[in-house]
């Protein structure tokens, strides 16, 4: 098995130590960081994502693989930065103002990273202005918002309005999610997309960034 295939295999099995060691080995063998990233790490996470969608594996399996991806990325990151290789897109993510719950948002962030996106996680209790400022300053093309309670959902509308008000809507797309949020609500407030779970969020963000 080639080292690239071995890394991919280690990632699918959620073996973070093996992925870290093999990534180092691949670099030493002269393989390009871009190749390791897309072929082994993102390639591995794609397999994991598909298996999860098909209910062949469960959430903990996905998260173990994500940790392994993270271990590989730790090795690759400095090289990717040096080589000036951009991510496939930047996403600003946060739980909206008044909301302290971030598990759902964290899961979305983990899978987005797994798909090769750069995620700028603003944490929770994030003010509308902060979402928009961060997206503008960091050149992100998507703002993702999460809410746990119906009472914090109106803040999502404020962010969507602010993006439009500042005439950034051609550059910055918005996506919403969380337990009480629905496709209908997303449409009502004029958000560009809704994601019902983390795997779906990745698909929706991909279609927003390639549209």
């Amino acid at each position: 098995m080639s080292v690239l295939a071995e890394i991919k295999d280690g990632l699918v099995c959620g073996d973070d130590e093996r992925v870290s060691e093999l990534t180092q080995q691949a670099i030493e063998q002269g393989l390009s960081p871009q190749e390791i990233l897309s072929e082994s790490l993102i390639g591995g996470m794609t397999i994991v994502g598909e298996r999860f969608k098909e209910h062949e594996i469960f959430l903990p399996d996905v998260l173990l693989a994500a940790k392994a991806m993270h271990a590989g990325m730790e090795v690759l990151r400095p090289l990717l930065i040096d080589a000036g290789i951009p991510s496939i897109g930047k996403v600003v993510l946060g739980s909206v103002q008044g909301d302290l719950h971030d598990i759902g948002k964290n899961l979305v962030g983990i899978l987005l990273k797994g798909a090769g996106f750069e995620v700028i996680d603003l944490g929770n209790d994030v003010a509308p202005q902060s979402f928009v400022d961060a997206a503008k300053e960091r050149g992100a093309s998507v703002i993702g918002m999460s809410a746990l309670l119906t009472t914090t959902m109106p803040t999502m509308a404020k962010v969507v309005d602010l993006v439009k008000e500042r005439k950034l809507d051609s550059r910055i797309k918005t996506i919403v999610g969380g337990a009480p949020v629905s496709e209908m609500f997303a449409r009502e407030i004029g958000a560009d997309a809704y994601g019902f779970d983390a795997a779906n969020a990745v698909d929706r963000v991909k279609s927003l960034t390639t549209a």
Partner: protein
Amino acid sequence: MTEVLTFSTGEVEPDRDSVLQNQGIPEGATVTDEIERLLKSAIGAFHEHGKPVGMTGEISHVDFGAVYQGEGRNEDKTPVGDIFRRAERLALFVVTLGERICARIDELFRSSDYALACMLDSVASAAADKTAEVLQERYADSRSGSKTENEGRAVLRYSPGYCGWHISGQRGLFEFLHPEEIGVSLKESFLMQPLKSVSGVLIAGAREIHEFEDSYSFCAECATRGCRERIRALYRE
């Protein structure tokens, strides 16, 4: 009069199925050894970091009527709105697992231990529910009389944010109970801090008062219909 109740983590340790269900793993599914190991270590972390505590306070029908009415944001007709009027006794409650376990979940996420963080989150969510359940049992036991007196009576809990009782109902509940005493506060957005907390009312009375049809306007949007199982359980020993 209010009462503070403490629980051991052993008493409120959630069962395996409810944790795995929170992870999206269906009942009876075979899981890998790795998942078993994660579950075990999350349960261990729960015992180390969870501080389950609760508070109850008996409330009159009139006072509860005002708490329930809250800011006038409830649905027109709700189960609680009917049930409480027929109750023999009412008590408000809040339970929490404390801030430490929430901080631990956060720490695990930050150190990229995603699977354990998420498993602990599921354990803590299920344990918060279990704490409310144990508190409900204790309340029922402490007020119960002889076996014949208890025949056909039941205590059940109801929470703002469910079944047409608007989540803003928590404001009146907090003003009456003051669960700040056990470290729980309410944000402007009606989110309780610490996150793993549950609030509500314990309604004691004849078993039948807890029965209702799931045909309220808001039932259409409810994905779980958990009320059906709760009602069925009333008639099980």
